């Protein structure tokens, strides 16, 4: 499928979580530019689990960052749940990230000086709920990833799998509409990998959260309902 076509057309735009229209992204590199994405159009339905695969440097992470509002596309538009986010001001974009999008990173990106529960609470800071309520919700999120007994441990005191569970709890705690996971199992052993993928799968199936996972791992990709591949900035379905 060509990149200027939607690889996943949904029945109705109203039930799509994401609509990407002709997205392009270029990065300056010295006097030239590197094209990270080229004419990507895409529609992603709600509550779907989507895998994005492709070679290193192919544009997977760039796509994920554009979906999460962490980067702005050079061309085209991104609509999240009916809101065009690519042209929003920083403040509004931060608000959307705070309310609607949960991130899970390969290296967990936990704050090393904060305990597990405090790390989860950081996701609730922009929502301005009380500390007590934030802590309560953070503990519930940790419970949902079976990590309540480690709530007051620092990241350095947790295993890789446990740290990734904390990161997932952090993404979950705000009840997001979307979870964007960038190589969430990249640093984990097989057993832990399966646990984490099972967890993400459950979020999509049980909680209706749209989960988009960038991965190199075919085992992980196979668990997704929708499979995308990006190579050299161009998107294709598998």
């Amino acid at each position, binding site marked *: 499928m060509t990149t200027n076509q939607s690889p996943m057309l949904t029945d109705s735009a109203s039930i799509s979580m994401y609509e990407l229209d002709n997205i392009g992204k270029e990065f300056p590199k010295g006097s030239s530019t590197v094209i990270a994405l080229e004419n990507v159009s895409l529609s992603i339905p709600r509550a779907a689990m989507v895998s994005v695969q492709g070679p290193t440097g192919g544009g997977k992470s760039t796509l994920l960052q554009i979906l999460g509002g*962490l980067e702005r596309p050079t061309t085209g538009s991104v609509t999240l749940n009916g809101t065009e986010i690519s042209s929003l001001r920083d403040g509004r974009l931060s608000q959307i*990230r705070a*309310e609607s999008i949960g991130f899970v990173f390969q290296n967990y*990106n936990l704050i090393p*000086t904060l305990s597990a529960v405090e790390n989860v609470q*950081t996701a609730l*800071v922009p929502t301005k709920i009380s500390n007590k309520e934030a802590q309560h919700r953070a503990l519930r999120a940790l419970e949902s990833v079976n990590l309540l007994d480690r709530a007051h441990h620092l990241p350095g005191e947790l295993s890789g799998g446990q740290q990734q569970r904390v990161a997932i709890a*952090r993404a979950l705690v705000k009840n997001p509409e979307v979870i964007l996971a960038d190589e969430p199992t990249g640093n984990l052993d097989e057993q832990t990998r399966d646990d984490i993928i099972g967890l993400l799968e459950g979020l999509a199936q049980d909680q209706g959260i749209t989960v988009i996972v960038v991965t190199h791992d075919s085992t992980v990709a196979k668990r997704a309902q929708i499979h995308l591949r990006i190579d050299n900035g161009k998107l294709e379905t598998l």
Partner: protein
Amino acid sequence: MFLIYLRRELTKRVRQTILISSGLAVAIALVITVNGVSSGIRNAQSEALSALYGIGTDLTVTKSAVGVDGGPQSFLFGGTQGSTSGGTRSLSSNRLILGPGSGTLTAQELSKIKSTPGVTGAAGVLQLRNVSFSGDLPTFSKTINQFNTYRQSQGNPSSPQGPNTPGSQGSAQQSQNQSPAPQTTQSTTVQPGPPIGGFDGQGGSRFGIDSFSVAGVDTSNLSIGPLSSTKIQSGRPLRASDKGQDVAVVDATYANGAKLKIGGTLKIGGKSFKIVGIVAPSSANSETANNAYIPLDVAQNLSAHKTQVTTIFVQATNNSKISEVKTSLTKSLPSTTVNSSADLASSVSGSLANVSDLVDNLGGWLSLIVLIAAFLIAMLFTNSGINRRTKELGTLKALGWRNSRIIKQVMAESVVSGLIGGLFGICLGLVGIWAFNHFSPGLTASVSQFGSFSRGGSGNGPPDFGGGQFARRAQSGTTTSINLQATISSVTILLALGLALLGGLLAGFAGGFRVSRLSPAVAMRSAQ
């Protein structure tokens, strides 16, 4: 969450907190110490000046001399003056004169000053020097008689002196009784004998000159002027009822050297004054401005400067008026010299002035350089810490934290580091001040008396024999030994704390702002 995150960052990254804090602490400690020493020096200068000018004096008005007081400065003795005993004639004389270079101000000028707007009080002082001469000489008449006898023995009857030469009576008898020289006869050669009389019995002479300063003070207004900065060590102070009385209070150091005591007498201008009090400076470890203080009217009568004074001490209604009053007085009394306390401060010299210059110049620059360096170090360390945390802060941005919240969080951490540094620096500064006060050497401050001495005056007459050089030296400066004590005020402490907080604030803002400008994706791509 704000406070939890703040506390965790400060306590879990102790090394960085200590680095930033200690950089600021050293700078703050230096600023406090230099400031404390500067303040101590200002106090010492003020102490040195108050010992001379009196507490509460804002301005002094003086006038340069137009001639040498009392005519040529010499002592004249008539042939019959003094007392003779054993071939020795003892002479003594006492003069009360103005100090070299000192001119006089009139009662009208004093009244004019008192009525100047902004002047709350003024008191005149007549600054004098009591110069006394004493000496022993041989009785010259005896030597002349001896010479006549010798000439007669040589067949020359002529005599340098007639029969009515003063002192000729009794000289032959003294020659017979006292001279061991060979006696003359008509038939033998008679040689003149060695001189007789004088302090050594061989015709020698001895002269002594003594000089001390005397201030005639207005006993009805002692709150302004040189006695205002003194305290009574024993006896009593001068009072209004002493007007017209021959009473004096004496400086403690001078009294000690001259062995003067309460109830004793001191000869001033040929008159005996009863010593009623011994005074010492109220603060400085030194002498008071004058050796003796007597009622102004008595001093004026004795020195033949009736109704005149040499210095007028002026008090302004408040500090802000000093400059205005100075300008008014300079205009209304153009022939006078008006000095303010600020002008007088420049007259302080000696090791105190050297230290003052050192602290003002080197100390000021040093504290500024260290402060800038500390700010830069704080910013560098804060930036370095933020650089290491760029990915972490980028993650928070990805989670939806606004830029303002990121900056606030980073600034809070930096400000607390500054606060810790500031508090630690204040403690360190206090230790520095304690150490300075504990080990500081004693300093001396020399103060040019009455400021205007150097103008005119000294060129109007030759240095006088009667103690002029002594008087000049004593008049031109008073040396005070001062135990320099660095001080610290609450304002300095607050200022130091403010500087530390400012340092933290700036460092935090710069670092936080830089990170907040990065897109979350770029921030997260940075190496941790």
